[in-house]
C-alpha cells in the first residue's frame, strides 16, 4: 500500500512537471505578444519601447531559461506579480479560487446525486420507459453546450421568473447557494449524461454478476440485493467517473463564469490569456492541472478501498 502510494505520488510529480513545461511553453507560444500589453496604450508603441519592456520582464530570454526561472520561483511559492493587475498572483488566486471551488462542489453534489440516481434507476428498469426516458434526456442534455444551457436557465429562472439572482456569487451559506444554483445546474447538466450513462452501465454489469443471481436465488430481499450487492459493486467505475468529471470541471468553469458574471479562476484565466498576463495564466493553469491530477490521484488511491481485490492486484497502468 505504502509502495503504491509512493508510486502514485511519483507519477503525480512527473505529470505535474511535464504539464508545467507544456503550460509554460503553451503560454509562451500562444498568439499575441505580452510586451505589447505591458507597454501600455496603443499610441505609445514603438519598437524601442517594446524591446525595453521585453528586456525588463526577461521576455527576450530563451524559453528554457524563462521556464527554469519560473519553476524555481514556483517551488519557492513565489508565483510572481500579475502583469495586468500589478498584484501578487497568489493574492489574486486566493481571492477567486473559493468561488470556483464552491461552484464545482455544488455542481458535483448535483450531478452525483441526480446522475447516479438517474443512471441506477435506468439500469434497474432496463428496457422500460424509465430507461429510455433517462437515456434520451441525458443524451439531449449532453448535446447542449453548457453556455447555451446557462443562457437558457438565466433567461427562464433569472429574468422571466426571477427566482434566482443572475450575477455574483453571494455571501453567507444561503446567499452562496442561492447565487450559485443556476450556474451549478448549468454545469451539472452536461455532466449528467456521462455520469448517468456510466452509472447505468456499471449497475447493469454489477446486476449481471453471478453472485447477484446467487443472492437472489437464496431469497434475499430485492432492496437489500440492490443496495448491498448491485449498487455497492458498481461504485468503482461510478466513483472514478465522478472524480474525472469533477476534476475536469475545475478546469472548465470558464464559460459558466462568464455567463453568470462570476469572478472565479476560469474568468481570471481567460482574461489573463487575452492580455498575455504570463504569470497569472501560468499560475491558474498550474493550479487547474494540479487540482486535476490531485483529484484523479485521490480517486485512484481510493479505488482499492472500494474494491479490495485491487489492493493486491497488479496496477493496470
Amino acid at each position, binding site marked *: 500500500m505504502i*509502495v503504491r502510494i509512493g508510486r502514485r505520488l511519483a507519477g503525480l510529480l512527473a505529470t505535474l512537471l511535464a504539464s508545467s513545461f507544456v503550460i509554460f511553453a503553451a503560454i509562451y507560444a500562444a498568439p499575441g505578444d505580452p510586451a505589447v500589453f505591458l507597454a501600455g496604450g496603443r499610441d505609445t508603441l514603438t519598437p524601442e519601447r517594446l524591446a525595453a519592456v521585453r528586456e525588463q520582464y526577461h521576455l527576450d530570454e530563451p524559453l528554457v531559461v524563462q521556464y527554469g526561472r519560473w519553476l524555481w520561483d514556483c517551488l519557492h511559492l513565489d508565483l510572481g506579480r500579475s502583469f495586468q493587475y500589478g498584484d501578487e498572483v497568489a493574492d489574486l488566486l486566493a481571492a477567486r479560487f473559493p468561488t470556483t471551488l464552491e461552484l464545482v462542489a455544488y455542481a458535483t453534489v448535483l450531478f452525483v446525486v441526480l446522475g447516479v440516481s438517474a443512471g441506477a434507476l435506468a439500469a434497474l428498469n432496463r428496457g422500460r420507459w424509465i430507461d429510455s426516458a433517462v437515456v434520451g434526456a441525458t443524451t439531449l442534455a449532453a448535446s447542449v453546450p453548457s453556455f447555451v444551457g446557462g443562457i437558457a436557465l438565466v433567461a427562464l429562472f433569472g429574468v422571466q421568473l426571477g427566482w434566482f439572482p443572475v450575477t455574483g456569487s453571494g455571501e453567507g451559506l444561503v446567499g452562496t447557494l442561492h447565487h450559485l444554483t443556476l450556474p451549478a445546474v448549468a454545469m451539472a447538466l452536461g455532466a449528467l449524461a456521462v455520469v448517468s450513462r456510466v452509472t447505468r452501465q456499471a449497475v447493469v454489469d454489477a446486476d449481471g454478476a453471478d453472485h447477484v443471481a446467487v443472492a437472489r436465488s437464496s431469497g434475499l430481499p430485492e432492496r437489500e440485493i440492490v443496495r448491498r450487492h448491485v449498487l455497492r459493486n458498481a461504485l468503482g467505475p461510478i466513483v472514478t467517473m465522478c472524480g474525472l468529471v469533477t476534476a475536469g470541471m475545475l478546469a472548465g468553469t470558464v464559460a459558466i463564469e462568464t455567463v453568470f458574471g462570476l469572478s472565479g479562476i476560469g474568468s481570471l484565466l481567460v482574461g489573463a490569456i487575452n492580455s498575455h498576463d504570463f504569470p497569472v495564466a501560468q499560475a491558474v493553469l498550474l493550479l487547474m492541472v494540479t487540482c486535476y491530477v490531485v483529484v484523479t490521484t485521490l480517486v485512484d488511491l481510493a479505488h482499492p478501498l472500494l474494491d479490495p481485490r485491487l489492493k*493486491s*492486484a*497488479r*496496477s493496470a497502468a
Partner: protein
Amino acid sequence: MTTPQTPAAAQPLLVADGLRKTYHLPGKDTLVAANDVSFTLPTGGSIGIVGESGSGKTTVARMLVGLVRPDAGTVRVDGRDRTAGRRRGRGERLARAREIQMVFQDPYLSLDPRLTARQCLATSLSLHDAAGAQGRIEELLDRVGLGSREAAARPHEMSGGQQQRLAIARALAVNPRVLVLDEAVAALDVSIQSQILRLLVDIRQDTGLALVFISHDLAVVQHVTDETVVMRRGTVVEQGPTERLLTAPENAYTRALLAAVPRRGWDPAAAVRDRGAAPAGGRRSGKAQED
C-alpha cells in the same frame, strides 16, 4: 490406448532442461511457477503433464513453445536450442514454429474471431509457404473432420468441438514435429472430448507427431501418453512411464491424486483420508496467500 511405441532409445526430439520461471507479484512477493523442470520426449513419443491448478503446467507449456522466456534452462528440439529469449530473426522464428505447435484450452478464444475456418488455415499456411495452399486447406479440414459448412463458418458459428478441431488443424498446418496441448479437451463435453482424443490418436498414428499432453485429468492422460510427469507447486514430483505411474506410484502426492479420481466403488471420504498432501499452488515467497 495402444499407440505406436517408439523405442525409448530413439534419439530425443524435445529436451526440456532445468526450466525455471519466477513471476514477480505486486509488492515484494515472488512466485516460482516452475522450478527445474526437465524431461525428454522421443520422436513420435507422447508425454503427459498432470498436476493441480496452479502447479505450473501452463507455464511449462508456454516455455516450450517460446511464449514465455524461462529464467533458466533450455528447450532443445533435435539438438537445436529453441529457448525463447534473445531477439531472433524471422527465419528462426518460423523454423521453431515448424517444429513445435500448441493447442490451447479455450478453443473459442484461441481462434481469430474475424476469420472463417478456411481463412484461418490460409493465414498460417501463407506464413510458411504460400504454394499449394488451397489443396492443403481441404486436406487439413478433412483430416480434422470439418465439413464444407464449417469451413466457411466463423468461430462463433461453430460448436466447441468444431472450434477445437480447427485449432488442431491450424497447428497441423505447418507439419510440426511436436504438438503441445494445454488442457485442450478440458472445456469439452465427454462425448466431444472423446472425439477429439480419438482424432489425436489417429493423427499420431498417421504422422508420427509427438505430443506433450497437459491435463489435470489422469484418466485422459492415461489414454494418450506413454510417459507422465506429475507436477506440484512448480516442481516435478514424479516422472515415469504412464502405466507404471498409475499402477505403482512412488510419490505420496501422486497417490493422493490417484485416490481422488472417482471410479466404481470409490468413496470420497476414504480418498481424503489417504491424502497426506498439503494444498496446491505454486511456491510463494513473502506473505503466504493460502494456509
